[in-house]
Structures are given as structure tokens and as C-alpha cells.
């Protein structure tokens, strides 16, 4: 096992600068998730750690050793590919044994390690099958088995669940997390799905356009997003944003949204009087208010999921989402009043998009 340090790493593809100075530290045994929209450079970064892409600038160290010029096979890493990349002409057993066979390990050791990995992943009955004969979830498991067998310093996962259906994805998510708790191997996991990131990660790294927008523990990112992008990306349904202005007066700091309604701000909110801001409220932190209180909203659509009720409504001209644990029956067009949990609202500078708390 080893730590991974990525220092000021750059990547150019011809004239395009796809990774623009990224710093990430992954502690020994940590499960780090790189998350971001497609094209943000997260997969490229992972492939650079694997040694499948050259590093244009900066350095990557695995276990304290800079690996910029180390070929992939000497980095002692294992990777799970999005399309699994199982060798179609080899049985499951041979797929898992391939790396050990190349390393010229004795037959008995290979068998023992393959069987152990197969037991961990419940692949025992499938060892004599070809990848063609497996379902998507089983192939996914074989791909992980191939990684486990090698007992590498670092696991790399490149969107491993994106080819699975929704139900299986949730199950495999848990399985991977369980596996990590058991093996405690340093892992770097790439996904575009923020729920995967939130549920699995010790550390989340949010990337956009080749830079790191924020990194930290999942709940840290949820509670204190550093900017508008992270605030909108982490959390589902996404955070609501309203254009607003800060008003500091005798009765404390308040924020004035369109229509002149004011809402109190958290005690530690920064920002000056008259500053243009974006006011952020998470859907799950909105509550219904009595007449004359909170923000006036007009119901657009109601989506009951059973467990909760999602209400899409309009405040001024802006569409917002609210999630209630209780069941409500609203009609489209009905006027309701929404009040945010003041201590859990967010303020972002209207120009830079940066959080005013950080």
C-alpha cells in the first residue's frame, strides 16, 4: 500500500491544455474519488497515474517514489476499466491469473491467489467461463478480481459502474466500498456520478476544465462548497440559486432576493452591504412557511417518490426545487411559501462565484 501525490501536473494533447496544474494528495489506504463533468480531465489524470498517458509537466509520486518515467508495469498498480477490458479469449481464471503468470509465479501460488480473490468476490462458479458468457455485473466483478489478485499498491477505477444498470450500480457501489474496507488498498476512483462520489469516498476531488475546484471529505463538500460549481454539482437534487443582494442593517445581516423579500443570513456570513451575491439553498433545507413569512413561490410540478415529495416551484422567475419528507398534495399553480434553514444557506460572490464563507 502506498500514498499517491500529484503535484502541479499538466497535460497537453497537441495544442489543448487538458490538465492545468493539479495537486492531489491521497493518503495511504484512502479511497479518493475524482468527480466532474465529462471532459474535465479526470480520466486523463487517472491514466497518467497508471502510466498510460505521458505527464507533460509536474510530477506524480506513488509510495514516495516519483513515477513520471516509470512504465506502467513497474508502478505496481491495478486498474479497472470502464469496459472491463477482459481478455475475451481467456477463461475467467486465466484472466485473473494473467499478471501472475507473466510474473512467473509458481502455479500453486497463482491458484491460491486466484481462488482467494474468487471467494472474496463470489466468482467461484464462474472461473471456467469465458467473459462472453457472463453478465455485466459478473464481468465487472472479474475485472475487480483481476485487480485484487495482484495485491497492488494502488487500485485505479475508471468509471467502473457506468455500463451497469441503475440497480446493479447501487449494489456494486456498496460492494466496492466493502471491499475497500476489507483490503484497505489506496484507491483512486473516477466517476461523473456525484452520488457515487458522496457514498464511496474518503476524499472527493471535484474537477472542472482540467483544474481542481475543491477537494475534501464528502460532507465537507456538501456543507461548505467552495464555489458555485461545487455547490451545484454535489447534492441531488441540485442546490437552488437565487440572485440577491446583501443588506446589513440594525436587525442583523439579511439577504434581499428579487421582489424585495429579505431572508436572514447565517451568523458567520461574510460580504458587505449592497454586494451582489448568489443565494444558495439546498432543496432538502427548504420548509413550508405560514403566510407572510419566507419566500413566495408558485408550484409548477409535484413529484412524489414515496419516500419524499419533490416540489418544483418558481420564486420570482427562478425555478427552485424543494424536497419534503412529509407528503404534500399541491396543485400546479398553487401559491406556497418556502423558508430556508437560515444556518444552512450559502452565499457566493455574484462575479467570481466563490463562496463568501471561505
Amino acid at each position, binding site marked *: 500500500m502506498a500514498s499517491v501525490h500529484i503535484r502541479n501536473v499538466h497535460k497537453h494533447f497537441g495544442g489543448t491544455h487538458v490538465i492545468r496544474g493539479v495537486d492531489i494528495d491521497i493518503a495511504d489506504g484512502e479511497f479518493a474519488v475524482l468527480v466532474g463533468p465529462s471532459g474535465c480531465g479526470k480520466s486523463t489524470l487517472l491514466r497518467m497515474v497508471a*502510466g498510460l498517458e505521458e505527464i507533460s509537466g509536474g510530477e506524480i509520486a506513488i509510495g514516495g517514489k516519483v513515477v513520471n518515467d516509470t512504465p506502467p508495469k513497474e508502478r505496481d498498480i491495478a486498474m479497472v476499466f470502464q469496459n472491463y477490458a477482459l*481478455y*475475451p479469449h481467456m477463461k475467467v481464471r486465466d484472466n485473473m491469473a494473467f499478471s501472475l503468470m507473466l510474473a512467473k509465479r509458481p502455479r500453486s501460488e497463482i491458484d491460491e491467489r486466484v481462488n482467494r480473490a474468487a471467494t472474496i468476490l463470489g466468482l467461484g462458479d464462474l472461473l471456467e467461463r469465458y467473459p462472453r458468457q457472463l453478465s455485466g455485473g459478473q464481468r465487472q466483478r472479474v475485472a475487480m478480481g483481476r485487480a485484487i489478485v495482484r495485491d497492488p499498491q494502488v487500485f485505479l477505477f475508471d468509471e467502473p459502474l457506468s455500463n451497469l444498470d441503475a440497480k446493479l450500480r447501487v449494489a456494486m457501489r456498496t460492494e466496492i466500498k466493502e471491499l475497500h474496507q476489507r483490503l484497505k488498498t489506496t484507491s483512486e476512483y473516477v466517476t461523473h456520478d456525484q452520488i457515487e462520489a458522496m457514498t464511496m469516498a474518503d476524499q472527493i476531488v471535484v474537477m472542472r476544465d482540467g483544474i481542481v475546484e475543491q477537494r475534501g471529505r464528502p460532507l465537507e463538500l456538501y456543507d461548505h462548497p467552495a464555489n458555485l460549481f461545487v455547490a451545484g454539482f454535489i447534492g441531488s437534487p441540485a442546490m437552488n440559486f437565487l440572485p440577491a443582494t446583501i443588506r446589513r442593517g440594525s436587525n442583523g445581516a439579511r439577504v434581499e432576493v428579487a421582489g424585495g423579500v429579505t431572508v436572514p443570513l447565517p451568523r458567520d456570513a461574510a460580504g458587505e452591504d449592497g454586494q451582489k451575491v448568489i443565494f444558495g439553498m439546498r432543496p432538502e433545507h427548504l420548509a413550508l412557511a405560514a403566510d407572510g413569512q419566507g419566500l413566495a413561490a408558485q408550484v409548477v410540478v409535484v413529484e412524489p417518490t414515496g419516500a419524499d415529495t419533490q416540489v418544483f416551484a418558481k420564486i420570482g422567475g427562478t425555478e427552485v426545487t424543494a424536497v419534503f419528507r412529509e407528503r404534500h398534495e399541491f396543485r400546479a399553480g398553487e401559491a406556497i411559501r418556502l423558508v430556508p434553514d437560515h444556518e444552512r444557506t450559502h452565499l457566493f460572490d455574484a462575479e467570481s462565484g466563490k463562496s463568501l464563507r471561505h
Partner: protein
Amino acid sequence: MNRLFNNKHFLGMLFMLPAGVLLLVFLTYPLGLGTWLGFTDAKIGRAGHWIGLDNFQYLVGDSVARLALFNTLFYTVVASALKFALGLWLALLLNRRLPFKSFFRAVILLPFIVPTALSAIAFWWMYDAQFSVLSWALERMGLIHTYIDFLGDPWNARFSTIAANVWRGVPFVAICLLAGLQTISPSLYEAAALDGATPWQRFRHVTLPLLTPIIAVVMTFSVLFTFTDFQLIYVITRGGPLNATHLMATLSFQRAIPGGSLGEGAALATLMIPFLLSAILFSYFGLQRRKWQQGGRD
């Protein structure tokens, strides 16, 4: 009647009828006629009589026919092996990221596009005893002192015709194998690299097994084409010198048309069928679709 036309099997038969008739008239009839001629003493201008296996008995004892059989096997084995090796090498090269890739891929096909008779004439000229550009170039480089007798010496002639055949056949093999290479997912190579495979091991354990099905098909065709080759030999050497380059196809033509012995020529051509059939069966049974290619569950 209406019920008949709603019957799937009857309709299937009906729709296959035109194709069946075409096959029967244009494929089976000539093949059958050729085979039948092999059992007669037909000559040009004279209808033949059934003589049983006489033609075959004669051919088995005929040293020229036996030489032609040896030549054909030698020609086929050596040329096919060279075509496979060079074709695979070219395909691997063209599958890499190189500048002007599409240009090279197009150029590779040139020998395949040129009419055989035309390229054969070019080779004939290059192999000419007096005007050979190859001999001239080698002499100018100081590598040889007398012109090489490409087509006058039996073994020289054999290798010269094989070279011409390889030149013509490599593009087909290379392009087909290239198509096969492109179906192999790059992530398999990446996975293999991470698994610790050297470039050779990647070729040996990933490329080659995944390419086997294509290799089987391509090489079957290549062997069939080479075994039945006629044009190149007929233009470059006409079977000479001393019948050293006569293939079964050229000798069969020689005996049947210029020689007039239709029956004997036909018998010689018929003798090719068992060899061709065994090549097809070998590829069908030995190299048929592997288990891993078949979909579904076991």
C-alpha cells in the same frame, strides 16, 4: 394454393430456386463436365469415350505431372508463409500511429489493384536475362559481377515466380489482418501493459489469439488462390525452364488446349480438387470459431 404460399418452408424453397438454378447451370455444370472429361479420352475436335481411371493412372506415372504437383505444393507453402509473415508485419506497422497513415494504407493496395497480366509482364521484364533492372542495380552496387539468370535456372525461376506471387498477394493479407487488428480494443493492450506484459507478450497473448479467426479465413483464401495460380506463371515463365515452374493449373491448360488432350488436362485439374478440399476442411475444422467467440451461456 393459398395455404401453400403461406407455408414458410415452401416459400423459402421458392425464393431459393433462382439462386439454385444459377448455381446449377453456371457452377455445377462446368465442374461436372470438367470432372467427366477427366474420365474420357476426349481430344480437341473429337468427342471422348469413357475410359475410367486411365488418365489418372497415366498421370501418376508421368514425371512431369509429378513435378508439377511438387512445384504447386512448394509454390503454395513458401508463398503463403511469406505472404502471412509480410502481411502480418505490414498490418502491425499500419495499425500504429504513423504520419500519412491513410496514404500508406492506400499505397499498400496498389499491387492488388494492378491487373495480374500487367504486373506479370513487369516482373518478366525485371527478371529478363539481359535487361533486368535488378541485376543492373546489384552490379552497379558491386554486389554481383554477372547478371543473374532469374528465369533460366530451375530454382531461380521457382523463387522468382514466388516473389512475384508474394508481391501480388501481400496487400490482401495485410489489409484483412489490419481490419482484424482494428477490432481489438486498445484497452486490452493497456490492461496487458498494466498486467506487466512486454510488447512481445502483448502480441503473443492478446493480438495473436484475437486475430486467429481472421488469420484462418485470410490464409484459407490465400492458399486457395496460390494453389490455383495460373496467370503469373503463364505470363512470366509458361512453366519453364524444364517444367520447373509448371503448376498443376498451367500444366493442365498446357496439356488440354495447346496439347489437345482435353481428357488428360481435365484429369489433371480434377486432381487439384482433393488438395483444395483438404485445405478448406483444415481451416473449417482446425481453425473454426473458438468457443470464446460464441455468444450466450454454456
